[in-house]
């Protein structure tokens, strides 16, 4: 992959091995502090490991931002059932491509994070669920796992610590919904990726109805440095209540799109203008999707803010997955809204009605607005339909579809209205239909 050069404004922790020669090999890993955090953790009790992660203020990097230490603390460790570790590498949130570089350039870091989670949860088996489209990453991960077994970093009595761990990859087959943790578990068990009703949460009943620690790739990758350098150190990199660094995947209308590592609380405009090289000459910023397409869109005047959980919430959006999509003044927001909703409609698993029907109707109405054959009431109808989906679905996909739609219609309403004003017969369209609507 054409990976971007490091930028001086970055704080490279989890990406610090990316630019070494043969970064994915176990030799490179071992020569650069690899598996030292595991050895340190192997001398700690599970509670000590969990407490260190709690102290770090690490929050889940998949998008929801739930405190990782707390999640690990919820694990039913005293259950007589086996405990499992599951890695969510089903990266499919539009705008997000960070787990891809983590696995491609430092797969052993992920293995080390998994092993430490295994110690924390008294778990001895894990799976890395990788989306099917990332076949080359499955191959890279399989190779890394083989190397780790061959060198005694996986398997029985790892490096004489008495700790056993078995790890394998598990291929997905193309379903965004499987990025949702309970749907992922269904998929791992060989079923359609439909969400489970919770509670029970995976910490109590996860993979194969056993207590399970399930986190995003990047979350596991943050753990080795937390153990090695301490939770307090990691926490100090970020802001109060959210520690450490995270990867931003910047895409869209910028000169140097790429994946950059920054501390939590990094200024958004600095990310756009410095890391990503700014907009193209003569262009103005119009909107930003801050963390994957399920986040409410920020208009240009709202983008001068630090990227931490609280500031983003105050601005009415989310930090999300780190997938920043930058849109300049050439962007057609009606088209953008339609493309986003088309995605969620395609990926809706169909399990619950507000999402299945809601996304379909939103797509239909946005399509006719985009075609210039919408009626006046359509704009409000889009908002009303989307509002009716909020909080009424089994899993967050319904909200993920509704939130960006509501924000785009609200903040860029004039563009939708302009489409009504310029009623045209779409190519091959039905003229009588236009007359009815007009």
């Amino acid at each position: 992959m054409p990976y971007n050069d490091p930028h001086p404004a970055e704080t490279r922790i989890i990406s610090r091995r990316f630019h070494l020669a043969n970064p994915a090999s176990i030799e490179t890993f071992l020569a650069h502090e690899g598996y030292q955090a595991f050895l340190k953790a192997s001398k700690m009790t599970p509670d000590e490991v969990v407490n260190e992660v709690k102290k770090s203020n690490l929050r889940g990097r998949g998008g929801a931002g739930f405190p990782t230490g707390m999640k690990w603390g919820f694990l039913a460790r005293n259950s007589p059932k086996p405990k499992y570790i599951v890695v969510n590498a089903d990266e499919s949130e539009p705008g997000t491509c960070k787990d891809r570089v983590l696995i491609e350039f430092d797969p052993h870091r992920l293995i080390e994070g998994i092993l430490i989670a295994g110690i924390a949860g008294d778990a001895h088996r894990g799976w890395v669920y990788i989306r099917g489209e990332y076949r080359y990453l499955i191959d890279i991960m399989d190779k890394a796992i083989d190397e780790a077994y061959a060198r005694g970093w996986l398997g029985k009595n790892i490096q004489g610590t008495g700790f056993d761990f078995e790890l394998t990859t598990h291929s997905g087959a193309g379903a965004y919904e499987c990025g949702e943790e309970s749907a992922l578990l269904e998929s791992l068990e060989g079923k359609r990726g439909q969400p489970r009703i919770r509670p029970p949460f995976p910490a109590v009943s996860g993979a194969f109805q056993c207590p399970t620690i399930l986190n995003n790739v990047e979350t596991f990758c943050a753990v080795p440095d937390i153990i090695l350098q301490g939770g307090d150190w990691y926490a100090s990199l970020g802001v109060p209540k959210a520690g450490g660094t995270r990867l931003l995947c910047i895409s869209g209308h910028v000169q140097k799109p790429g994946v950059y590592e920054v501390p939590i609380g990094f200024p958004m405009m600095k990310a756009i203008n410095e890391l990503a090289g700014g907009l193209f000459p003569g262009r103005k910023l119009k909107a930003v999707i801050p963390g994957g397409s399920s986040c409410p869109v920020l208009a240009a005047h709202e983008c001068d803010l630090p990227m931490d959980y609280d500031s983003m919430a105050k601005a009415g959006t989310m930090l999300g997955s780190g997938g920043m999509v930058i849109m300049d003044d050439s962007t057609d927001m009606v088209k953008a809204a339609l493309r986003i909703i088309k995605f969620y409609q395609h990926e809706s698993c169909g399990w619950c009605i507000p999402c299945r029907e809601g996304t379909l109707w939103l797509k239909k109405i946005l399509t006719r607005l985009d075609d210039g054959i919408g009626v006046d009431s359509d704009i409000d109808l889009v908002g009303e339909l989307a509002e009716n989906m909020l909080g009424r679905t089994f899993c967050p996909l319904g909200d993920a579809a509704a939130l960006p739609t509501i924000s785009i219609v609200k903040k860029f309403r004039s563009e939708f209205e302009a489409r009504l004003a310029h009623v045209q017969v779409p190519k091959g369209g039905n003229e009588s239909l236009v007359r009815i609507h007009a």
Partner: protein
Amino acid sequence: MTFSPRLETKLARLLESYPKGRERAALIPMLMYTQDEVGYITKELAQEVAKRCGVTTLQVDEVVGYYTMLRDRKMGRTHLQICTNISCLLVGGEELWKHACSKLGIGHNQVTADGSISLEEVECIGACSWAPAIQTNYDFHHHVTVERLDKIIADLRKVQ
């Protein structure tokens, strides 16, 4: 039904990686890996995988119907996937999609008459920072232009 020795080894290892009695868990990866060798999920393949994973063929169908990458019919020798999701859309993904359709004379999930290429408009493939991106089977191509797409298509037509 048997597969190549290499795949058989892989499948045996796969089945061992789940708790005893939970062989169904191998279903989706097994369908993916065997599909790569067979081409698509034929009736025979569905029966074979069902047998190995301890499920009914109906349960296999259920899964094949759900996951986008599992196919119940023959596609082209190379499956050309063009992303038009938001990050790609902003930098020319839609133009690539339209160009591919007109160049190949086929649409979404269709196959060229010579069987060399099938085409799919795909959702985000996780190449956003290197957009616009496409995949030919499992290979990624980043920063694709119309000219590069033409070259890729010309090369794919030569693949036997």
